[in-house]
């Protein structure tokens, strides 16, 4: 029994320690801005790795999710003769929820796991130590550009996701199922608010970007530098960041849209 409580206490403490290390890493990466001469080039490279490389999966997923939403929404709405409301249904669910959340989940699977594996591998092959011994701060050189790349990429990806999905919904709803194109757009426009829906969706996206990128980088930076440790860290990145995204999504939705 005492062992049981002891192990709970021990686990709690190590969770706190882990959170502390993660915070220290983040602060280390944010406070030490990469030097101005090299920074932009490093950031562009990481934007390519993190953002551009996720573009295809985001666009394809967005297209299909928009099409499915239109199809499902239509079959329900047409029962009430309200198929003209397909536009706002699709746009609101995408801008408020699906855009930021699905992008974050896909991003965690595509870019987050890659970030963890890459940094874990750099740690295992002593590249991080080697940087330190060359008097180059790995937080500044390796972690910082990746963090900013993730933080910038994800909201952009979420916007692209939503836009493509709405086009997909238009494709199915208007071109295929015969909803009137004019009412599709105009009712959407009258129902969707720029501040409340688009900006709040983007705020969500920035929060998710912070969470997913932070978790991915920390898991890589803190992993046990063996192949087993890296594979464990990669899995943890996807699991932890997905759960964190869904949890925070609930909190943010409660704050933003319940009023």
């Amino acid at each position, binding site marked *: 029994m005492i062992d049981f409580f002891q192990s709970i206490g021990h686990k709690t403490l190590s969770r706190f320690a882990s959170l502390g290390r993660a915070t220290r890493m983040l602060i280390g990466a944010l406070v030490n801005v990469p030097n101005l001469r090299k920074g932009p080039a490093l950031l562009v490279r990481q934007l390519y790795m993190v953002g551009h490389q996720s573009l295809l999966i985001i666009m394809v997923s967005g297209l299909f999710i928009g099409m499915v939403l239109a199809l499902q929404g239509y079959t329900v709405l047409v029962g009430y003769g309200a198929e003209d409301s397909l536009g706002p249904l699709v746009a609101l669910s995408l801008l408020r929820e699906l855009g930021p959340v699905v992008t974050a989940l896909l991003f965690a699977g595509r870019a987050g796991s890659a970030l963890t594996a890459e940094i874990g591998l750099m740690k295992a092959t002593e*590249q991080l130590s080697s940087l330190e011994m060359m008097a180059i701060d790995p937080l500044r050189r390796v972690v910082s550009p990746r963090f900013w790349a993730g933080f910038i990429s994800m909201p952009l990806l979420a916007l692209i996701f939503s836009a493509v999905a709405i086009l997909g919904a238009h494709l199915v709803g208007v071109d295929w199922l015969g909803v009137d194109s004019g009412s599709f757009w105009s009712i959407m426009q009258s129902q969707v608010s720029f501040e409340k829906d688009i900006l709040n969706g983007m705020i969500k996206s920035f929060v998710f970007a912070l969470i997913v990128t932070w978790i991915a980088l920390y898991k890589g930076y803190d992993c046990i530098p063996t192949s087993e440790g890296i594979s464990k860290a990669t899995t943890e990145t996807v699991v932890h960041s997905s759960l964190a995204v869904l949890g925070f999504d609930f909190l943010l939705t409660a704050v933003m849209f319940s009023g």
Partner: protein
Amino acid sequence: MSQFVNVDVESDLSQAIVEIKDVTFSRGERTIYKNMSFSVPKGKITAIMGPSGIGKTTMLRLIGGQLKPDNGDILFEGQSIPRMSRKALYDARTKMSMLFQSGALFTDMSVFDNVAFPLREHTQLSEDLIRLVVLMKLQAVGLRGAKDLMPSELSGGMARRAALARAIALDPELIMYDEPFAGQDPISMGVLVKLIKSLNEVLGLSSLIVTHDVNEVLSIADHVVIIAEQGVIGSGTPEQMQQHDSALVQQFLKGLSDGPVPFHYQAQNYQEELLSGGQ
């Protein structure tokens, strides 16, 4: 302590570039070093030897300031590494470099860019000048022809030589080699031994080699420190070490040259573990 009486014998080896003073270091519950002291003379090749798992790599990380000792002091060119500010430490690190066991080449850069990396980071040299320096360094390790290869295309020995070229890119005062001979075939081993020796002579730097390949290192080392049981059990020139009266030193030197015979120190641990497992 009687263990480092021999240090006085090397007074002819001029001043020390690194001095380890009374260092105690533990990781978790396990004490790795207890009141250990030795020094690395300037301009010479010093070998730190000892059985696996006694924290030889830890020693290098302590000197590099990546770890801090619990007690005692580590001096690099007379300045205390553990008490340095972050900036001073980074300045000191530009004067030392480390060759990691795996080479630690950056996997996303070509060999050329790897060697150019510290130059681009720490100097304001033009690309033309950097190209010249890099080619010179690669020529020194015999890999000028491999400059466009990626690290994944190199053999283990070539990766280590490329890493060596990168380590000497900034003309450091001190190079630390972490197990440079581990897992090398006899030819690459011979190449590395020759390289370390010649780099030390030509560039006039100090070398610190951590290894347990006794024969290779004794052939080039000027100064040998043997670590076991949480401290230095013997130090001196290779000749002095061959005649050292400590049984432990003899066992280590001969034990390994005979073949992979488990070292005395390890065997004790093993027995204890067996006994404790039986209870």
